[in-house]
């Protein structure tokens, strides 16, 4: 793989430009003193300052974090259990394959269809309880439903690398079910569980459509707020907010990478 033809760098550069130039343009506009961004009128942190004073943005940020934290916590536990239940039990091949396909459903379903399915599901559940009316509860449940699959896949990939003899050895060395879980299974899975949790958190922040389809009054998240405000026209505050969110993603990706490194050591 050492000697690539020179021309390969052209599409590579173009692709990276496709990915980053728009984001950079937003970042530049977020520190441009010009309100309408038609020309460069000097550097300012002004728009960032306004961001923190903005009530609607504050509320949306709170919702975003609330949804991300709760859904991540729940989906990490459920996803880890799901991976264990799928991988550590001698299911007959057919059952295992069916479960495996079901697990991949949220991963492979396009967002919009996933969201439409949620609308239908909550439409039915709403008949039973007002808890499922548009708002934070269905939004959080919707997030969990797709996060759980990702967490389970990450954890299961780790489980697959652990030799079964480790568990047999633990039994052979007098470990009961609990001791085995707390002293062997969980410590060995921890990097993957943490990685899955970070991924789930990122996915929750990244989501727009599922939140958009399940939101009610007062439960808008940051992406929904941005989407709504775009209809009223561009504003530098939105640029500032978006830049901060991209930076948050960068931080999370770096966190996952760090975890990957530690996993390699053990």
């Amino acid at each position: 793989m050492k000697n690539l033809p020179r021309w390969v760098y052209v599409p590579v550069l173009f692709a990276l430009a496709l990915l980053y130039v728009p984001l950079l343009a937003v970042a530049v506009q977020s520190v441009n003193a010009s309100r309408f961004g038609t020309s460069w009128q000097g550097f300012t942190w002004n728009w960032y300052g306004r961001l923190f004073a903005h009530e609607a943005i504050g509320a949306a940020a709170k919702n975003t974090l609330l949804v991300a934290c709760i859904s991540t916590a729940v989906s990490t536990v459920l996803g880890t259990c799901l991976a264990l239940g799928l991988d550590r039990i001698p299911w007959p091949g057919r059952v295992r394959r069916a479960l495996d396909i079901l697990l991949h459903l949220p991963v492979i379903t396009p967002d919009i269809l996933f969201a439409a399915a949620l609308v239908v599901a909550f439409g039915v559940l709403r008949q039973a309880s007002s808890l499922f009316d548009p708002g934070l509860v269905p939004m959080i449940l919707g997030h969990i439903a797709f996060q759980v699959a990702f967490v389970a896949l990450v954890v299961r990939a780790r489980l697959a690398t652990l030799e079964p003899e480790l568990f047999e050895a633990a039994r052979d060395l007098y470990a009961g079910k609990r001791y085995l879980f707390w002293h062997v299974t969980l410590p060995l899975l921890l990097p993957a569980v943490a990685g899955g949790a970070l991924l789930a958190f990122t996915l929750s922040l990244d989501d727009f459509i599922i939140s958009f389809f399940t939101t009610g009054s007062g439960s808008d998240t940051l992406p929904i707020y941005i989407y709504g405000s775009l209809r009223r026209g561009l504003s530098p505050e939105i640029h500032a907010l978006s830049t901060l969110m991209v930076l948050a993603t960068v931080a999370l990706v770096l966190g996952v990478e760090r975890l990957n490194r530690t996993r390699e050591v053990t």
Partner: protein
Amino acid sequence: MGAPGRALEVREVRKRFGAVDVLRGVTLSADPGTFLTLLGPSGCGKTTLLRIVAGLELADSGSVTLGGEDLLAKPAQQRPVNTVFQQYALFPHLTVADNVAFGLRARRIPEADVARKVSEALELLQLGELAVRLPAKLSGGQKQRVALARALVNEPDILLLDEPMSALDAKLRAQVQLELRRLQRRIGRTFVLVTHDQDEALTVSDRILVMREGCIEQAGAPEDVYARPRTRFVAEFLGAANLIEATRDGDACETALGRLEPAEKPGWTRGCLCIRPEKLELSATRPEGANAIEATLEEVVYRGDHVEVFLGVSGLRARAPALNGLARGARVWVRLPAAHLMALEA
């Protein structure tokens, strides 16, 4: 000092995986303090038998008892039996000392005792300096010693070893075999080793059980099994052997080499005679007595401490300390001493 531990009895153990009979009624016993080796080719069921004793596999029928106590009724974590796994299965997230302490802590043994026993075990296997290392930083030989310490620290009645040398290189293996033998003598516990390596079996064992297709083909002290293989399989699997097809005629046998007279009369009319290469006697002149034939030296291979000779009749192989001037192509006389010429069971 009487050997610690209790006697292991395995009776008529059977195991089937799908359509394959892995174990077809295996019976064996091990007195306390013996080094027992299950020797056989892969797929003969030796590892399955070991796993059944450890509680990592279920037997279809039969019994396994330890000092009269039924083992099969207990789950693995309640059996006074510990295993050294083929790939060692050290816990990668625990240090050497914590790996060794695992079995003690899992039984909630007071931490003071744990510390003492762990340091004794580390001492025994010369692992003291590695106590705080993680398994990923150990060499193959070190890993193996940790696995041994981790099992022995629990003072099991039986120590099971599943091909523990297969992950080591050939040079280290010979050394470790000796150490293992010494270790077993020193602590006097029962070791049950599974291997497909005949040298290893001969080196370490008090008793060898040669297994084939789920049955025990022959059991006995290493020298007995080697010197008196009962079947063709044992003769070929354990050491080199000259096998000679024969038809019985009275007390003697008719073979492609001519008329041969084994010391013991065979029980069959058509069968196989066997003689180890080092038992063949070569000479330039016709020797006294029966069982002598003339042959050509077809190939001579120099092996340092001995020479290996391929003779021009029936693929006969001989091994001699030196050839005293005999060279390839020479005509020699070969004697097959009756005492070493064995009739194999059909």
